[in-house]
């Protein structure tokens, strides 16, 4: 492994002189039950080399057969990316000799991808929209998993031998390739992250992939090149592999921009090569230069027949597509009347669907947001789970809210009620009963507590009498404490002011 640390410019310096051009190849593993060309299970984490058939091992005489569901998933992805769907497309053999494929070729598509010429709009955090053109989306199969042994680092460099698990070999993959993305300027790293996030969201929303990046369901190769400002011609690009989290995509693009700028500034040409991303050092190292070894000798796969589509089939699949995530967000934000910041927080907290369900169950958008962004998010954070996993149902929130609105309990007590319900003590009404949580609405005990609080803070009482009505909060606080939160704060305030003969 090369121990040389590359020179980099600061990002701002790089941006002053150069315009970045990006390109992405995102591989999406489909969540079909079986593999692309065999009936072996498509499953993660099983005993090595058990989810394999003779087809996956490339044994002599085997014949692959295409998974029909995978083809439909590919078409759905194409449609979701606003692509044209090929009337007729073929599979091809991409020949290379590396032990991650036992066949010495990967079955892929070459000249005729199933989907092509698409585009998607990517919205950045501040609302800026970039349109990214999609070159193609094609069907192929995943490779086996290599583990390099014997070296000091577990990396391929210095390894003595490698172990191969073919459980992943043949898992259906859709490779989505963008056209060159120009004009992103200093937003390039942010756009890179947002693009991959959008692809992940789209395939998850379609239900065609589990889209878990930590499991490699969505993997990104990021191409970066720089051209001096004002120049039309693209510079030489590098392709950074192993960029497998959203944060890594952003960092890798930023790093490569800074590194390219330093290389170009020194007067050296960029070497067209593969770079490897290292999360620990947040930098890339040189992989393999493009060479005549990238001669894949593609030819049509003679064991598979063409895929032919027709309008009726495509339109049937189009009709099955769910509402696109971006459109759904726009619709919901408008319906709910949340501000951009409020809505962004809701999305980031992962409670948008929960809020939607809760509103549908019968509370206002404001109340649903109060619960999901407040108490439920707080509990989820403490328990280190997703808010939706806490077991709080929309119906429960509706009941709690009804109790608050009727004045039976207040916000503070509602948290205790929630505790009781989650502890299995019954419905909210039953918990109120059992725990004796109802708001103290009888003025008698309240007045007693108020007198106690006024006596305890005579100086505050004097201030209020003297017209400083805002000081009443201190007395209200004392009363709430004395009644262990079981008083209606608004009523307490009213009574204090009456007691002192002051107009509220």
């Amino acid at each position, binding site marked *: 492994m090369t121990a040389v640390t590359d020179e980099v410019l600061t990002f701002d310096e790089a941006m002053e002189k150069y315009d970045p051009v990006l390109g992405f190849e995102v591989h999406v593993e489909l969540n079909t039950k*079986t593999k692309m060309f065999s009936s072996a299970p498509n499953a993660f984490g099983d005993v090595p*080399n*058990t989810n394999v058939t003779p087809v996956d091992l490339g044994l002599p005489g085997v014949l692959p*057969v295409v*998974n029909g569901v995978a083809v439909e998933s590919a078409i759905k992805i194409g449609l979701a990316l606003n692509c044209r769907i090929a009337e007729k497309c073929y599979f091809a053999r991409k020949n290379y*000799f590396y*032990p991650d494929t036992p066949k010495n070729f990967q079955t892929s598509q070459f000249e005729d991808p199933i989907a092509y010429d698409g585009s998607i709009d990517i919205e950045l955090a501040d609302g800026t929209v970039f349109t990214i053109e999609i070159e193609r989306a094609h069907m192929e199969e995943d490779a086996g998993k290599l583990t390099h042994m014997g070296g000091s680092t577990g990396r391929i460099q210095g390894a003595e031998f490698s172990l*191969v*698990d073919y459980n992943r070999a043949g898992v259906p993959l859709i490779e989505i390739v963008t056209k060159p993305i120009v004009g992103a300027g200093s937003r390039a790293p942010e756009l890179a992250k947002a693009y991959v996030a959008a692809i992940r969201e789209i395939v998850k929303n379609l239900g065609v992939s589990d889209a878990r990046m930590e499991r490699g369901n969505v993997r990104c190769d990021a191409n970066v090149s720089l051209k001096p400002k004002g120049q039309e011609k693209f510079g030489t690009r590098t392709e950074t592999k192993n960029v497998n989290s959203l944060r890594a995509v952003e960092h890798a693009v930023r790093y490569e921009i800074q590194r390219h700028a330093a290389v170009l500034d020194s007067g050296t040409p960029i070497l067209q090569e593969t770079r490897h991303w290292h999360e620990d050092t947040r930098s890339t190292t040189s992989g393999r230069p493009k060479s*005549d070894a990238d001669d894949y000798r593609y030819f049509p796969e003679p064991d598979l027949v063409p895929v032919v589509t027709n309008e009726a089939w495509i339109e049937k699949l189009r009709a099955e597509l769910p509402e696109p995530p971006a459109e759904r967000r726009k619709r919901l934000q408008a319906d709910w009347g949340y501000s951009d910041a409020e809505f962004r927080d809701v999305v980031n907290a992962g409670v948008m669907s929960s809020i939607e369900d809760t509103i549908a169950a019968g509370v206002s958008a404001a109340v649903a947001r109060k619960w999901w962004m407040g108490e439920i998010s707080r509990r989820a954070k403490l328990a280190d789970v997703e808010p939706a996993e806490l077991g709080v149902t929309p119906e429960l929130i509706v009941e709690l809210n009804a109790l608050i609105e009727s004045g039976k309990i207040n916000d503070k007590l509602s948290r205790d009620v929630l505790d009781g319900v989650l502890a299995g003590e019954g419905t909210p009404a039953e918990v109120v009963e059992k725990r004796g949580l109802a708001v103290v609405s009888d003025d008698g005990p309240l007045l007693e507590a108020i007198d106690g609080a006024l006596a305890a803070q005579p100086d505050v009482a004097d201030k209020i009498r003297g017209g400083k009505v805002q000081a009443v909060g201190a007395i209200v606080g004392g009363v709430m404490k004395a009644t262990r939160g079981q008083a209606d704060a608004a009523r307490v305030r009213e009574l204090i002011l009456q007691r002192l003969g002051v107009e509220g």
Partner: protein
Amino acid sequence: MAEINRDDVAHLARLAHIDMNDDELDRMAGELAVIVDSIKTVSEVAGDDIPATSHPIPLSNVFREDVVGETLSNEEALLGAPDNADGRFKVPAILDGE
């Protein structure tokens, strides 16, 4: 005129990680050239009106249901492997010679 020369064979051998000496390259270039020339006779028969095809039978959309079938056991999978360890295929160091 042979379509396959010695350099082509050397290039293919490198792609396929096959070690070939000079004699073997010469012999293989000659043999492959004969095969290519033989197959070329097909294009003499097929006129411009015959589209290229990758499959002899005019079939399309041969699909499989997405239903899990029989798989090999780990032992069966590794049966033909020259070497194995930890239930996995054991292969020589991959970057060797690159």
